[in-house]
């Protein structure tokens, strides 16, 4: 029983990171229909900025995350302006290839500046605590708490503010949103900012239990796509629930079915979902 609770907790930790990361991806997809493969690179840059702010500038962990969020958010906006905006009238395929170009570039850039080696991120929350008969570290509790808080904040922002409403409106009906006077440019930039910020948070809070290195984005990007497909491309609750579904399927699947075949299980699950519900679990019914 203890193992079961422990695995639930493990799934919750991993799922929180997945959800945060996938949220940004799904937001961008919902509004601009861009499958942003460079999202993993944003995640990676986020980890590096936080790390460098801590080790080189000597900032506190939380402050470093804050700076990283701003920087990566702006980087995402820059990406939108320089690359995706000129491509707004081309099919999404072109965006995909351009995103791969961005990814290659950012990885090479980070490797050029800070080298290819693995780095570990120190954290003030490294204590091990016993909790309901399971073992956790404070960092892991932080991950879950931070993810939930951020997702709540994002929810409030999207539901309760005008700007947030514009994002939702644009993702539901682009033309309608234009007609009702929403500034599409501003909304796109804002969405990219949020998506970059979310990627930076996800990597910054998970880096202390992982490692920071130029290729770290590869580990999450494919999974994030799985998540937003499960959840329905562009669906915000879908991304959150999809993230936790994948987190739990990894922890419980590895525990009770087979660790070696857990990836295969996940993908076959995905194929089955798509066969039965070709547009994902949470996609809106569109005529």
């Amino acid at each position: 029983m203890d193992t079961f609770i422990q695995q639930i907790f493990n799934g919750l930790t991993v799922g929180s990171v997945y959800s945060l990361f996938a949220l940004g991806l799904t937001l961008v997809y919902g509004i601009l229909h861009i499958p942003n493969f460079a999202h993993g690179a944003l995640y990676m840059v986020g980890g590096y900025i936080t790390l460098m702010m801590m080790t080189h500038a000597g900032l506190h962990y939380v402050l470093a995350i804050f700076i990283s969020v701003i920087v990566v958010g702006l980087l995402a906006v820059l990406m939108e302006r320089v690359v995706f905006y000129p491509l707004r009238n081309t099919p999404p395929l072109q965006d995909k290839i351009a995103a791969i170009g961005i990814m290659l570039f950012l990885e090479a850039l980070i490797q050029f500046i800070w080298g290819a080696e693995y780095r570990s991120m120190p954290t003030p929350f490294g204590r091990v605590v016993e909790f309901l008969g399971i073992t956790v570290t404070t960092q892991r509790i932080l991950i879950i708490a931070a993810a939930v808080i951020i997702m709540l904040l994002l929810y409030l922002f999207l539901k309760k503010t005008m700007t947030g409403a514009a994002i939702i409106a644009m993702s539901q009906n682009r033309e309608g949103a234009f007609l009702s006077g929403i500034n599409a440019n501003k909304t796109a930039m804002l969405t990219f900012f949020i998506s970059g910020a979310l990627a930076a948070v996800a990597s910054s809070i998970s880096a202390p239990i992982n490692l920071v290195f130029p290729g770290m984005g590869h580990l999450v990007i494919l999974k994030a796509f799985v998540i937003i497909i499960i959840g329905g491309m562009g669906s915000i609750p879908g991304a959150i629930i999809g993230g936790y579904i994948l987190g739990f399927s990894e922890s419980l699947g590895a525990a009770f079915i087979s660790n070696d075949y857990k990836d295969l299980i996940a993908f076959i699950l995905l194929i089955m979902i798509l066969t039965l519900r070709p547009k994902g679990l949470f996609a809106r019914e569109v005529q």
Partner: protein
Amino acid sequence: MSVLFDSRFLSSALLIFSVLFPFLTDNQYFLHVLSLAFIWAIAVYGLNLIGGYTGQLSLAHAGFFGVGAYSAGLLMVKGGMNFWPALAAAVLITTVLGFFVGLIALRTKEHFFAIYTLCVGYIIYLIIYKWEGLTEGVRGLIGIPSPAPIGPITFDTPQSQYYLLLFFLVFVIFIMKRIVHSLIGRTYMAIRNSEELAETIGINAMKHKMISFVLSTSFAGLAGALYASFVRFIGPDIAYVNIIFDMLTYLIVGGIGTLSGPLIGTIFIVSVSQSLQFLEELRMLIFGPLLIALIIFYPRGIAGGIQSLLHKRKKTLQIRKGLRQSAAVEEGK
């Protein structure tokens, strides 16, 4: 000037050049790179048929490439088969698998099809990766023989392998050309354009998508089988998603939905990335932005860019001609 742009002239010149190429250089490296580019180009033509012409972007083609490579490799290494029957069998296996995948996958549309096939490709990769008893898993399959001789023609030198691959590439391009410029190709393009419209003018879209998909997987399988006997070592990585992204890059840069696009794109990207080698770990620093610039300035690819350029020229010529004629008419009045 205009004769330079004539496609018949251009393609025969290209063909003659590629036939003579081994005589122009004894640098095996060029030969090797070009041979590999031919293999990729064959696979990219497959991708172009279903994605470019029929409008159903399949991301499972790296998987099918892997299936072709592993079928051929395993039949030769573990089944002791000769290259030629193994090649035929590999193409057949890939095609049959493609048929069954298509049967389910083609029910989804647009980007859901792309994602669905991405997952199929990933599952193929995982199966190759995990099924050690058959595929040797991560270790990979070694000792794949090079193509067996046909009568007096042998394929153990790089030159002869180059010609073999060139032959298959020309063969594939020929088939593509015949298809694209026929009623069949127009049918595919009609489906790409609007499946609804195609259906209402009497085209059984599902059937044609199916044929196009199956044929395109057989190209991927062919390329995979050729790869296996050319590189003579295969690992699960050849079915990984990175490979499909490479293929996509070749296709998009060259020009999706054009006949020359896959060839142009493949050779262009391969040679650019080879010539950036001197930058070592920094090469992606140049390659990434270059790729982005290409996509932004030539969203329809190099071939598409040339096409619209030619069209514009033709149009201005026509307008000028038209003006002159009307001027003449005016004068005659």
